[in-house]
């Protein structure tokens, strides 16, 4: 048989890899689409962070094991020192009130002796050879250099660069002093010579100050405690000016060798193969600074073996191979065959992998457990909701009528059923915008949404259809008809549905509204038109989602803040919700430290929101991660994006299991061949006979 497949004599026939890395610390993972940007000033989506999180090191990071999420220094040597200043720039005491604080000053001191990954930008470039360089790896003698505070400052300035389009520029102008001014200066400078590289070192930024080689300060307008969370995002990672200058060469740009594609950082890994059409590879950074596996974690971590490697130098992995995998099905099948080390579970593979125990707890099926897989679940810090356009004359506005209508709809759209059908139970119906794990979320009776639920026998129970119908009568739509004109109430649902599952989903929504005789018309559009509708406020009911940037209630509640309205202003308040009382409480809550007082304010806010019902709160998805037994040290961490440095593998075990799970099944081939023979041979014989006969006839 090996004669037929000479190339496969030793390997598994169906292995999607060449077999080189099979016995070493190589992690196999995937990416579903080419990441758009790998420039830390620009990148803002989770699939991009999978890569640059391992490469760029911002000043802070989230502790890998501790919960609730906790920041700790990464590029910095300690947590930033915060000083509050008044109008004149004089320091204020720690307990100064919000009104007094005009500026906050963050002083960040860096780790010493941190080196960049080897990169040609740090050694002299032979301009003559430049034309012959097809890839970054063609450059001889990559150099390196020590990290300084200037690199961090340089990156902050890049946020204002007009050509980079940093997605957080708009937001940061509200906080970092002088950022808008820098933007204007840079724009001016670019007008003179648009193609020329701008050396940002020559442009001062008022709000950022270099103290010495290892220290810099950032000046923020007002008090903004959430700023620390931003410091843990790659937007604030260091960027050496040499690198930017290096990539500015037109010869490199033509070959797609740009900073947006070939990141340069101080992190544990570096991107060595970057072929977004097929494969991306991270390799261990030989210059990585001393870094160790955490010594402490949550109480349960010890039992789960998460502390076995405590104090060991990290990273453990030598290489991480990401293959392009567009579809979930092949991914899932390859995971089952052992060719991927971890997998999220798509709703359709759910039954195979997971069953819910009596108490509703998810656990692996016996078959999976036998294969030694491990399941980890976590409620994600995101929300999928259905919003009402508050500017709409029918469902929107503050009138009693519209509010009752919204409340009635909130009751009848049964998200418990939605989760069980479309997400296979991987979600939690939301009582308000805040998911568990975010400060301000309240569990139990205190946290339920009284508009939609009752508390019965220790759990929330959805209110009945009759109550919804009663609300509808109050709203003036008995039996789904306008009490005055008698016309049936028709509502419009604006969606962008094109996937295979969407039809079922839309049917489901329509059925929900039919429960109280409301007619729901689905207005399906493409993404662009949908955005247009949202922007000009002509949508009526829509689906939307939000994924938290950082674990703070402000990052959810600002989605409902009046001045952030989507309509015309293009803010993040997609529902165009505007309630002066909410806005006032939000402004108050925003700058508070996490404290019982803050909890109190959030509770008030919740009451307002739940009564106004501008959203159906929808649900918080649950993440299910499956890991093969040879994959160690995994703990879901929804905030940190540099977690690969903690992972460890057992490649020998992996190799054994792969061989075991992928034994080729050959009998159908032989069977098919025999069948063919059985069909053809008699006919062949028949023809032979006929020809002989005719020959004989001719001879005669």
């Amino acid at each position: 048989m090996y004669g037929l497949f000479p190339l496969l004599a030793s390997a598994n026939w169906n292995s999607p890899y060449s077999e080189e890395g099979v016995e070493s610390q190589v992690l196999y993972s995937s990416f579903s689409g080419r990441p758009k940007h790998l420039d830390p000033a620009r990148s803002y989506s989770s699939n991009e962070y999978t890569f640059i999180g391992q490469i760029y090191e911002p000043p802070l990071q989230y502790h890998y094991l501790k919960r609730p999420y906790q920041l700790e220094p990464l590029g910095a040597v300690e947590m930033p020192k915060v000083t509050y200043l008044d109008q004149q720039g004089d320091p204020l005491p720690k307990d100064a009130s919000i009104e007094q604080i005009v500026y906050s000053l963050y002083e960040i001191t860096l780790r010493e002796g941190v080196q960049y990954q080897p990169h040609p930008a740090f050694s002299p470039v032979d301009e003559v050879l430049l034309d012959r360089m097809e890839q970054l790896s063609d450059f001889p003698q990559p150099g390196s250099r020590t990290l300084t505070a200037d690199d961090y400052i340089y990156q902050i300035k890049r946020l204002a660069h007009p050509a980079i389009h940093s997605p957080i520029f708009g937001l940061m102008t509200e906080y970092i002093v002088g950022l808008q001014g820098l933007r204007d200066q840079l724009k001016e400078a670019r007008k003179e010579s648009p193609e020329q590289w701008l050396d940002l070192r020559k442009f001062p930024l008022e709000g950022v100050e270099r103290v010495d080689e290892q220290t810099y300060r950032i000046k923020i307008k007002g008090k903004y405690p959430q700023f620390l969370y931003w410091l843990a995002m790659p937007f604030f990672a260091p960027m050496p000016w040499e690198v930017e200058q290096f990539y500015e060469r037109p010869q490199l740009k033509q070959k797609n060798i740009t900073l947006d594609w070939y990141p340069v950082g101080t992190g544990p890994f570096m991107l060595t193969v970057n072929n977004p059409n097929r494969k991306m590879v991270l390799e261990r950074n030989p210059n990585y600074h001393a870094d160790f596996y955490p010594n402490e974690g949550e109480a349960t971590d010890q039992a789960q073996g998460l502390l076995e490697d405590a104090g060991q130098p990290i990273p453990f992995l030598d290489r991480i191979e990401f293959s392009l995998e567009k579809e979930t099905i092949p991914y899932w099948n390859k995971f089952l065959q052992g060719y991927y080390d971890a997998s999220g579970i798509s709703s359709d593979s759910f039954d195979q992998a997971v069953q819910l125990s009596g108490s509703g707890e998810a656990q692996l099926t016996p078959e999976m457990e036998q294969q030694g897989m491990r399941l980890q679940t976590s409620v994600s810090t995101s929300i999928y909701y259905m919003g009402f356009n508050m500017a709409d004359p029918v469902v929107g506005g503050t009138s009693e009528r519209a509010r009752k209508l919204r409340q009635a709809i909130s009751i009848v759209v049964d998200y418990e059923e939605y989760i069980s059908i479309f997400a296979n139970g991987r979600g939690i119906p939301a009582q308000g915008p805040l998911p568990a794990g975010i400060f301000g979320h309240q569990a139990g009776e205190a946290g339920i949404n009284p508009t939609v639920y009752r508390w019965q026998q220790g759990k929330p129970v959805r209110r009945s259809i009759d109550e919804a119908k009663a609300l509808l009568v109050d709203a003036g739509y008995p039996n789904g008809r306008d009490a005055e004109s008698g016309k049936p109430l028709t509502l419009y649902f604006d969606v962008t549905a094109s996937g295979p599952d969407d039809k079922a989903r839309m049917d489901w929504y329509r059925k929900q509204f039919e429960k109280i005789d409301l007619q729901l018309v689905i207005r399906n559009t493409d993404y662009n038109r949908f955005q247009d509708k949202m922007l000009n406020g002509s949508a009526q009911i829509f689906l939307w989602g939000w994924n938290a940037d950082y674990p703070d209630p402000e990052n959810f509640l600002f989605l409902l803040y009046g001045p952030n309205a989507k309509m015309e202003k293009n803010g993040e308040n997609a529902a165009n919700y505007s309630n002066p009382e909410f806005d006032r409480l939000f402004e108050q809550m925003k700058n508070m430290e996490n404290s019982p007082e803050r909890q109190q304010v959030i509770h008030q806010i919740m009451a307002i929101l739940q009564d106004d019902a501008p959203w159906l709160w929808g649900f918080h998805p649950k993440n299910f991660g499956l890991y093969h037994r040879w994959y160690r040290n995994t703990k879901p961490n929804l905030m940190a994006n540099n977690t690969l440095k903690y992972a460890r593998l057992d490649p020998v075990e992996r190799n054994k299991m792969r061989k075991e799970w992928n034994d080729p099944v050959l009998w159908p081939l032989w069977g098919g061949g025999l069948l063919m023979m059985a069909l053809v041979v008699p006919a062949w014989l028949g023809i032979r006979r006929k020809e002989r006969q005719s020959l004989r006839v001719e001879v005669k």
Partner: protein
Amino acid sequence: MSALYALVGAKPLFLWTDLLIWLLVAVILFGVSYTRKRPHLLAPWHRVARSRLAMGSLVVLLVYVVIGLLDSIHYRPALEQSEPGDEIHYAVEARTVLDWLVGDLREASEKSYSAPMATHLYSRENVEGEQGVTQRDYPRLKYGGNHLQDPQQRSGDITQSLLLGSVQGLLLWSLIVLMLVLWLRYRKGGSPLQRIVTLLRGHADVSEKQPLPWPTILWVTALVSVLLMMAIQLGVKYHILGTDKVGQDVFYQAVKSIRTGLVIGTLTTLIMLPFAVMLGIMAGYFRGWIDDLIQYTYTTLNSIPGVLLIAAAILMIQVYIDNNALLFETTEERSDLRLLFLCIILGVTSWTGLCRLLRGETLKLREMDYITASHAFGVSHLRIITRHILPNVMHVVLISVVLDFSGLVLAEAVLSYVGVGVDPTMHSWGNMINGARLEMAREPVVWWTLLASFLFMFVLVLAANLFSDVVREAFDPRVQSRGERF
């Protein structure tokens, strides 16, 4: 008018594709009556009618067509009046006569997947036991097999229904045969017994020159009516082909998809035909710059990869629909416009082949003596084209229409996969396959949606292919010499 609607309790809804379909039916009926009177046109059809294969396929195709036509009469049912004197309002969701006929099937939806003929859901759920203990078990279905006290009786019940269905089917068939006999007697005379013998044994009737293959037709009819009655018997009690992710009956979806398939297969050609015929003949007849222009047009259109042109055009119509959302009162109207546009754009990408064939044919024809003679007599171009050329290229048109049909039905599935097919809310085999793709990764595998779409599509396309083969052989002068095969 509105009084009439109120009386019936429904308001008709005229969709574009409905109108076009009925127009097509009218065109075909007209064509039939036109052909009947002209023996030279009738001759090839007699050849088709003699073929057992063609007639067998035709019966199957007719069943599809009838279902499709029933599904092409849309109406909006009246909503219940809250008070007797109120003005009557009509639902925004349109139904068709087919929906009305299948009745409960449309509404009988379960919670989620269930296998064909199942009495329980396909996946385990937390079920509250008798002592209030929750267990993981397969819950009973709301509709599927809910008449059974004990699910154990299922196989007996199914056998019983099948038997009953086949008896009913045979009765229905007998009824059809009876009506046929009466009709034939009325047309041709003879004793009823003689007629029956003729029908069943296929004896060539002395009075007929072109005997129809009656046995084949009747056997296929028997098969179809038995299957139909079985489906009705089982369909009211079970989900014959299971349910999908949100518990909708897959059999119902597959049946509803028939219309979409037929619309794409037929309307596309109906829409492109006038252009292809007109331009093709013009190019061949006038030659010169007109020929150049037409050739240029179709070469240009042809050189754009079809899928990309369709994708771009579908995005465009979606923009139009979204910008004019108020024009469409119901979801059906929106998806219908997209369907119509899909037909148009498919027509645009597929008319070039026919156009080129017609051009070639016309080039040959115009050199014929009788056409040159007509020229000499000063007959106008228009008259020459309509009287002499058009009738002589009709066989090319007919063959290509019949051949295109199955290809278009198959194309719909592929386009839906790419995301530029019919509206995702519309029932279509393409949408079913697209959804079923994900189900193949489940364990245990959910295979019935794929199977249902496969079966329904396969039978239609197979019948169409077989029929078109015979039609081509009957009409194509080149293949006639090889005579009848099969």
